[in-house]
């Protein structure tokens, strides 16, 4: 059976060229980057040239990049590291649609006495810039807002938000795990930025935090003092080399966007559907769509049977049985949250649009035949027509 992987916001397949470079490091430059012998130096050189390459891409200084294990660690280091280094300020602003690693870190700091404001989003899943400036006060340490949302793909006005923060003398961090290499973001007013390799065809377990020169953060794990003392632990040189190699990948952004739009058009023909989040301010490969009267986990598993891999915001598919906090923040009706599907496209989708539309349409039909909510569906359509 042919497999169509449409869950690239969860993780991606490692690119062939990247895998080749990673393998070389595994088998040849395997030394510890801290060792002084030839093998160690070899490894260190690979790491440093990877860092330089990333810095050139970002137009920043290599010293501003701290390699980590990925998005979660980068976000933890950004928030906790900054808080530790600036204990006099105890107020943090973030949004309700952040990734759990931001939300849970903020909750943790709240328990330590920090005050946290969670900015709401509008029904399109976008933050109003003024909502942030209104919340900034004297003891505000940090504003942390994600660039691209992992569930609905909405793109926040990061440049505007970061400019406001700069003006008001507040640090600004962005979780750019879903946006890096996909949507340009100049670092001009950004103080810290988190990136994770496995979201763009580099291996899992590697990422970095960009920290602008002059900004003081303290380490959250201590040890051998690697990465300028900010991230102790033997460097993941194979991963780091892979991450840098992924900068050369052609992600076929335009083709995937065309494919995405085609799929949306096809799925919109199904009755009782809703696209969640802004279509305009959205990353090129994301579809988040809800089908009334059915439940997302069933839909996901039915597509899984057909070799189509997607995910859902339904509570039934979460280990905590909580529905998606992002869809909830968009004031989406519960019935639609349960029937939500996230497709995050990669090159697999190109040319397979009709097949994907057909399989999803059939699965929705089958589940609706099982559902006791058929009549409501018609009511729901009438409601939409009247709106």
């Amino acid at each position: 059976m042919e497999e169509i992987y449409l869950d690239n916001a969860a993780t991606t397949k490692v690119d062939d060229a990247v895998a080749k470079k990673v393998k070389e490091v595994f088998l040849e430059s395997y030394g510890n980057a801290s060792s002084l012998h030839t093998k160690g130096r070899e490894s260190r050189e690979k790491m440093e040239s990877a860092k330089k390459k990333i810095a050139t891409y970002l137009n920043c200084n290599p010293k501003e990049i701290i390699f980590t294990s990925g998005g979660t660690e980068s976000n933890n280091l950004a928030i906790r590291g900054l808080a530790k280094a600036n204990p006099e300020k105890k107020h943090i602003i973030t949004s309700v649609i952040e990734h759990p690693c931001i939300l849970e870190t903020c909750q943790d700091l709240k328990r330590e006495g920090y005050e946290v404001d969670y900015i709401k989003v509008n029904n399109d899943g976008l933050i109003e810039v003024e909502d942030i400036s209104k919340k900034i006060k004297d003891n505000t340490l940090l504003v942390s807002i994600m660039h691209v949302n992992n569930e609905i793909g909405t793109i926040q006005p990061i440049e505007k938000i970061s400019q406001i923060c700069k003006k008001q003398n507040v640090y600004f961090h962005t979780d750019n795990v879903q946006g890096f290499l996909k949507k340009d973001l100049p670092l001009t007013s950004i103080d810290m930025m988190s990136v994770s390799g496995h979201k763009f065809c580099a291996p899992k377990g590697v990422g970095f935090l960009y920290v602008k020169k002059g900004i003081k953060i303290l380490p959250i794990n201590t040890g051998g003092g690697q990465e300028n003392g900010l991230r102790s632990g033997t460097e993941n040189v194979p991963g780091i080399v892979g991450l840098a190699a992924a900068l050369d990948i052609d992600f076929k952004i335009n083709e995937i966007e065309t494919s995405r739009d085609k799929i949306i058009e096809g799925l919109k023909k199904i009755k009782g559907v809703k696209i969640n989040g802004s279509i305009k301010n959205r990353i090129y490969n994301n579809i988040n769509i809800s089908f009334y009267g059915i439940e997302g986990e069933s839909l996901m598993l039915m597509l899984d049977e057909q070799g189509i891999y997607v995910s859902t915001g339904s509570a039934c598919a979460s280990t905590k049985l909580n529905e998606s906090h992002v869809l909830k923040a968009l004031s989406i009706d519960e019935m639609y949250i349960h029937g939500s599907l996230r497709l995050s496209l990669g090159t697999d989708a190109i040319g397979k649009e009709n097949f994907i539309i057909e399989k999803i349409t059939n699965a929705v039909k089958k589940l609706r035949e099982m559902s006791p909510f058929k009549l409501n569906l018609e009511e729901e359509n009438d409601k939409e027509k009247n709106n």
Partner: protein
Amino acid sequence: MNNVDYNANILDHFKNPRNMGELKNADAEATVGNPSCGDVMKIMIKVSNNKIENIKFQTMGCAAAIATSSMATELAKRKTLDEAEKITNKDVSLALGKLPPIKEHCSNLAADALKKAIANYKKNYNESPKLPNKGDSLNMI
């Protein structure tokens, strides 16, 4: 967005649900669950000679909800009402070869729906003639 692992039997009942659909001229039905938790099950029964002659379900829910609905209808089919109402959610789970623990509470409601449908039947047809059953007591409803 982590999904749980289902065994082959559960997946089979999910993919090929037994007794799924609407039951025309049902003698009784019951719906349990709550759209806010994502699982809603409707069980419809056709009774003759105090036996469940035919049974169908309609479910909106996860794979576990659909599989338990399917299994509950299989267990109840052709049983007497008294036998069928003794079927528990646990029986359904065991017959499927154990549900993932997280699914036990919210998705395993089919036996409740079945009990409720039988109770509704008994309420509606209290007066109608039925064959006496061994152990049938007057106040059992």
